[in-house]
């Protein structure tokens, strides 16, 4: 399934091209930013599509076979890796493809819609993509920590770049917490390194499996606790959800598409690593399920009582992250498939909603549900798209949300948790209620006379194209889920066989 | 003597010129003498490790080594300043 190359050409390019683009764009004057940013986003998209599968051992150091004490560059022969290992497999293929597609629209929209001096902002968007690509590709504990660190720092920057006082506060709060959870992850890695001596995740797992750690499992438990801390932080799970949702709500909607994609990638990547490292310990999966259930419910309840459409979506993103972690926490075949599939679907339908929310900025930027704006009359397309997005988000059949939620429900029933299945249904229904509250006030309700602005608004074509592309993707995946599942199933089989 | 003992000094000179161009201060003759003499004293203090045998590390007297890059960097900064005018 995964070919035996340890110097796959595409992996460094997926990391270095965004980084170099960010540097150039940050340095340049305004005019040159647009062509450079867009063309490199296209290049990244193409690379993510055509890349074959394999490994990349950065710095070109081989693996050491512990039995024969020989060095090998062949990843199929087992050896403790001396260099930093990245994997590009089916999971990385689908995840990076979707996030680079989002990156492309995100970059084009920001070059069109924003005022000048947007160089540092676009640089941050590219670095955001880079951090999520690294998190999903990396197979090294230490590098995972750096990726999470840089990822959270960039989230702070993207939120602060919108310049309002709310976004500044949100960014500062989220940044403060990165210190706690970043340090937590570092402590966790230190404990695992002290226990095993290997920074490479596969090697550390191999060591844990080969040698009976016995009473040292205390160390592993504490490491798990700290790992969960950073998982909660990176994905915005239960106790940290107020800060993360604030970041989602305070950034521009087009940036939030990328932010939510990044946090879902982090949830999947760190979740799978946790499952592989600690899965054999008792109570680990229960903790993960507990956190996911709480996040699901609190997120959706908080979404119900929001008065701003952006904040409703922000809390729903949090709530639906709970689905992803629930699937991973179940740790079964169906659960993992459902969880990862849900991450993909979630990114897609939340992107539809967020792009529609971005369209509201072209109508004056009012997203509060306190007043009625009657936008459906001005732009029936956006209203329809938002309703379709809401339908997709609440898991109604022709769309993609249904497919993953049904898998998750089946997984819960099979594991003997009918209550969680009920909760999933509740969250889906409530998602629809929460979204429809906002949609009704903003799009459908006839506007009050004094606030009605009859002027025509032309939306950028890219925005409309983007919305259409993601709706089509949503329907295609909803009708023919195998198109994504064939990327996920081999990964799940590999994770569970370890 | 290997090349690795000379290259750092050359690099230090180039870096010194680069950062010297950013100085916004009129260097007097006294200041130049002060800088160079200070840098020679400092280079004695930060002397190179004597295992890298070289003309300026260990050969003059055992245990005494000049850290050449420090001196060349200071000279580079002065040159850079003078180049910019």
């Amino acid at each position, binding site marked *: 399934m995964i070919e035996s190359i340890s110097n796959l050409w595409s992996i460094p390019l997926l990391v270095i091209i965004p*980084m170099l683009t960010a540097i150039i764009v*940050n340095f340049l004057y305004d005019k040159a930013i647009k062509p450079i940013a867009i063309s490199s986003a296209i290049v990244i998209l193409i690379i993510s599509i055509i890349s074959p599968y394999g490994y990349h051992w950065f710095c070109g150091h081989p693996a050491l076979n512990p039995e024969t004490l020989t060095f090998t560059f062949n990843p199929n022969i087992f050896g403790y890796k001396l260099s930093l290992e990245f994997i590009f497999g089916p999971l990385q293929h689908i995840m990076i493809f979707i996030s680079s597609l989002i990156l492309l629209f995100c970059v084009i929209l920001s070059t069109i819609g924003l005022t000048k001096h947007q160089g540092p902002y676009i640089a941050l968007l590219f670095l955001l993509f880079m951090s999520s690509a690294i998190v999903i590709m990396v197979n090294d504990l230490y590098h995972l920590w750096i990726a999470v660190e840089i990822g959270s720092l960039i989230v702070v920057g993207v939120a*602060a770049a919108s310049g309002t006082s709310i976004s500044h506060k949100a960014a500062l709060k989220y940044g403060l917490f990165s210190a706690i959870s970043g340090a937590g992850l570092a402590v966790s890695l230190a404990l695992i390194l002290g226990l095993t*001596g290997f920074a490479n995740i596969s090697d550390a797992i191999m060591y844990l499996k080969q040698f009976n750690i016995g009473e040292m499992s205390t160390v592993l438990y504490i490491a798990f606790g700290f790992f969960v801390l950073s998982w909660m932080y990176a994905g915005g799970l239960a106790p940290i959800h107020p800060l993360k949702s604030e970041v989602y709500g305070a950034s521009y909607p087009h940036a939030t598409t990328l932010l939510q994609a990044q946090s879902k990638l982090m949830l999947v990547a760190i979740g799978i690593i946790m499952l592989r490292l600690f899965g054999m310990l008792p109570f680990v999966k229960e903790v993960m399920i507990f956190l996911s259930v709480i996040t699901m419910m609190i997120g959706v309840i908080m979404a119900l009582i929001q008065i701003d459409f952006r904040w409703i979506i922000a809390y729903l993103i949090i709530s639906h992250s709970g689905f992803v972690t629930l699937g991973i926490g179940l740790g079964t075949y169906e659960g993992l498939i459902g969880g990862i599939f849900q991450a993909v679907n979630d990114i897609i339908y939340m992107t539809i909603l967020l792009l529609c929310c971005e369209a509201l900025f072209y109508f004056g930027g009012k997203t509060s549900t306190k007043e009625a704006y009657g936008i459906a009359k001005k732009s029936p397309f956006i209203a329809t798209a938002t309703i379709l997005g809401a339908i997709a988000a609440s898991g109604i059949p022709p769309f993609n949300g249904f497919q993953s939620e049904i898998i998750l429900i089946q997984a819960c029933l099979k594991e003997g948790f009918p209550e969680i299945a009920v909760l999933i249904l509740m969250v889906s229904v409530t998602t629809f209620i929460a979204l429809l509250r906002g949609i009704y006030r903003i799009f459908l309700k006839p506007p009050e006379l004094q606030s009605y602005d009859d002027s025509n608004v032309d939306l950028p074509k890219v925005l409309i194209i983007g919305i259409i592309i993601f709706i089509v993707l949503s329907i295609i995946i909803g009708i023919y889920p195998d198109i994504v599942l064939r990327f996920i199933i081999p990964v799940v089989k590999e994770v569970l066989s370890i | 003597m290997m090349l690795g003992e000379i290259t750092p000094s050359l690099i230090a000179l180039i870096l010194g010129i680069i950062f010297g161009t950013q100085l916004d201060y009129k260097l007097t003759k006294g200041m130049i003498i002060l800088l160079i003499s200070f*840098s020679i004293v400092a280079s004695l203090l930060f002397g190179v490790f004597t295992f890298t045998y070289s003309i300026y590390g260990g050969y003059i007297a055992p245990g005494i080594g000049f850290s050449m890059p420090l001196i060349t960097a200071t000279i580079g900064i002065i040159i850079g300043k003078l180049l910019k005018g």
Partner: protein
Amino acid sequence: MEELKGKRGIIALIALIIITIGFLSSLIKLTGRVNPGISEVYNALAYLVAPNNLATWVYDWRGFDTLLETAVIYVGGLVSALAIGRGVVQMKKCKQESPVTSKPLEFRTESLTVILKYLGIPASILLLSYGIMVVTGSSTSGGGGFQCGVIMTSGYLLAAILYGKDTPIKFGKRFIIGIGAIGLGGYALLGLPGYLVTGYWQYNIGADVWGLAPSILHIIFGDPFRLSLILKEGVFYSTPGIIPLINIAEAFNVIGAIGLIYFAFLYGWSDEGE
């Protein structure tokens, strides 16, 4: 801190005690039983690259990690300047509140003592050259790019604090951003030769420990930094390859990032000159 008084405070205290007990017990379990794992292999091979093991660890075995660490500093500079107002963006189509920016600090430099007035300049210039010395000796001594950047920016800060707007070390906006860009970009691109020749990004073609690169490149990148090590066991020749170059790039990046932070917070930011 109203939230942490009374009942809540006690609960939080108990929780903290539980955490501390758990954490300390794990540390006690680990005492004396730390597994060296792969690091033994690293240490056994380190002399093949540079006389300084630390430089080999940081810039060769885990060189790509350090690239990302460098990027963290770069992003730190970027985000800090954002907080001041560089690169804050707004939507063209809708009116928003004006972006949050802060004013530059006010300098009062008239009360400088004579010693500070006359020794401040040579001290800050010598700090610059000390930083350059540290970066050039990266592969043989302790120190390297990070340290050089911090030393040089502290020289910059010293001059700025002493002399205010008439600082003798006047890094311009574009100079600082450019030097950061050269630094991080240079570090990233130093992986390119190894990638083109061997397929491994950031393969150290100068040191060429595994013999993958053609000898001409080995000479070009390796020989300028070749050193002889005279030890009890005999004379060894080693070259750190691209490690010194990486260190210079690293130093540039740190100067750019930290300099940007100092610049933005001292003098404020307006986008007109950019």
